[in-house]
């Protein structure tokens, strides 16, 4: 076949609709990215079939980080599950803690003190900032801009210091416990947080100038990896990926939880739905989180109970029931489906991570006809955390 500039004709399809890819023909090449470090946080492999420098088929391979959480939780008591859930998502573990705790509280009929709701919201927004900072570094890195990652990792570490003084740990905070949170804010926390927020804002200014107002970045990211709005429902797309397509899908607004009804904000949206827009939506969402944290620290009650009295957790039984708790994490809708059967152990826990749909079905669709050099950037732009896919 003569050279065809219109690559979208490749690969051709067989009569039964499957792709006509004959590796022995010499036209196609199998290329693996990953599992180590395909440009995202966590291990995942992409099996690409390329024709020239263009991808004709991509398959996502997951399971490198599978530990079987949903199984392990079935043999742990409700309190014993609390320390392990955060491990499902390393860069933003707190949503696991919140969703799990809220699901348990709902089925057990527990009321959580007001102050705990505020602290939970605070922690979730802090986690969101961390997650976005990590993302920005990764997104820039995928286009060869290493310096952004150097900056954002530094300010993320400042936020980790705040996490450490508040929760007692840097990464796995294990702070949002069924029944409330483990403690109140330490003395002088708000002031130190403000300093950290200012540092992050200042870095974000740099990021905007160096990354977003950057000819190279725009050349690579604008118009690439467009998610058509009509795909949103079919592919279960949520979060910034959906908001960048102009749909203000944000659980914090749509089905508000915790203290979001008392905070003043609008969902951040974009309209072009390409890599650039998604990055920009996340940058602006990060600024929104900074604003939310400031609002929280002003509006929250300064003292009070942080945790409700639990029954003896060693033999805590929860009546039969099922529920679903969702929250808006930095990647989209994070949710826990919890089924109880009246025993002291969960009957079933299912964790819905947004990457589950974004990085498999959606990515496999978007990657077709992409340039090899854009694959990593595309995957990063969907904001993928593999452990939440395979758990």
């Amino acid at each position, binding site marked *: 076949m003569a050279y065809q500039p219109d690559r979208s004709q490749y690969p051709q399809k067989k009569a039964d609709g499957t792709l006509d890819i004959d590796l*022995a023909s010499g036209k196609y090449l199998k290329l693996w990215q990953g*599992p*180590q470090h395909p440009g995202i946080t966590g*291990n995942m492999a992409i099996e690409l079939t390329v024709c020239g420098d263009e991808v004709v088929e991509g398959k996502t391979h997951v399971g490198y*980080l599978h*530990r079987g959480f949903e199984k392990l939780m079935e043999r742990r008591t409700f309190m014993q599950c609390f320390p392990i859930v955060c*491990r499902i998502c390393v860069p933003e573990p707190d949503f696991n803690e919140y969703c799990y705790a809220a699901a348990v509280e709902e089925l057990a009929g527990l009321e959580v003190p007001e102050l705990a709701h505020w602290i939970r919201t605070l922690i979730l927004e802090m986690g969101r900032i961390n997650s976005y900072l990590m993302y920005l570094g990764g997104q820039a890195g995928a286009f060869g801009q290493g310096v952004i990652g*150097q900056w954002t*990792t530094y300010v993320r570490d400042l936020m980790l210091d705040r996490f450490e003084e508040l929760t007692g740990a840097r990464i*796995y905070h294990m702070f949002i416990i069924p029944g409330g949170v483990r403690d109140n804010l330490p003395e002088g926390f708000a002031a130190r947080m403000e300093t950290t927020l200012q540092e992050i804002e200042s870095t974000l200014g740099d990021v905007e100038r160096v990354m977003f107002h950057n000819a190279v970045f725009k050349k690579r990211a604008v118009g690439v990896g467009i998610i058509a709005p009509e795909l949103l429902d079919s592919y279960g797309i949520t979060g910034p990926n959906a908001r960048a397509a102009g749909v203000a899908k944000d659980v914090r607004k749509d089905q508000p939880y915790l203290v979001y009804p008392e905070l003043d904000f609008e969902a951040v949206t974009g309209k072009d739905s390409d890599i650039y827009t998604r990055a920009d939506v996340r940058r602006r969402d990060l600024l929104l989180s900074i604003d939310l944290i400031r609002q929280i620290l002003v509006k929250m009650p300064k003292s009070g109970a942080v945790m409700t009295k639990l029954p003896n957790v060693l033999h805590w039984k929860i009546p039969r029931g099922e529920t679903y708790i969702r929250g808006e994490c930095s990647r989209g809708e994070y949710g826990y489906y919890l089924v109880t059967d009246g025993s002291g152990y969960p009957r079933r826990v299912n964790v819905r991570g947004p990457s589950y749909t974004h990085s498999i079905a959606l990515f496999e669709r978007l990657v077709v006809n992409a340039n090899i050099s854009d694959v990593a950037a595309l995957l990063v732009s969907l904001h993928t955390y593999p452990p939440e896919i395979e758990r």
Partner: protein
Amino acid sequence: MKEELLKRMVKGPDGVEFEVEPLRDYYCEAGPTVQTPAYTAIIEKLFNWARSESIWILGFGTGCGAIEMRPLMTPRFDAYRYGIQWRPTPRQANLFVISGYLSTKTLKRVIRSYEQMQSPKYVVGLGSCTINGGMYWDSYNTIKRLDDYLPVDLYIAGCMPRPEALLAGFEDLKKLIRAGKAEGANQYAENFEWYKANQKSVIHDWDMPDYNW
């Protein structure tokens, strides 16, 4: 065995057909060998010093703990000043940091990567999971003891260990190397059969050569 690893006929771009047998064609058949000190003590000492001051870590974060390596690569902790840096390929790396739990699926890739590293090479186990299974002690999909499958020079406690603890670990590793006690690669060569048997007992679909050099 994966299709692409089977012996088959392939037609080249020039139309000529030829036989490919990937396991024989692409891999070395010889096993690992024990490297004995080749020079006088003083020169070996110098070598060990040089080795200890150029720790090149393979950029393969196998589990959660990898997230605490990122701060080390950035200005705040700046591990580069300690002679530590991260490399994208096993061929350029001499330290494999197993950053936490290993699912059997990852273990397979880890073994391949480890065997592709050049001697002398070191392994550091990071956190509870590498020592005795950690919080995944009852999981069907993660190994419990890293030293059953790879020779481990050093363990760092934590879940996960902080960047500062990692640095402390690397500093300890340097001492081991300088003392000539970081002999993991030789241990692996000496007990190759034992390691292989352990590896194969948990990797049920072994579809690669025994030694991936």
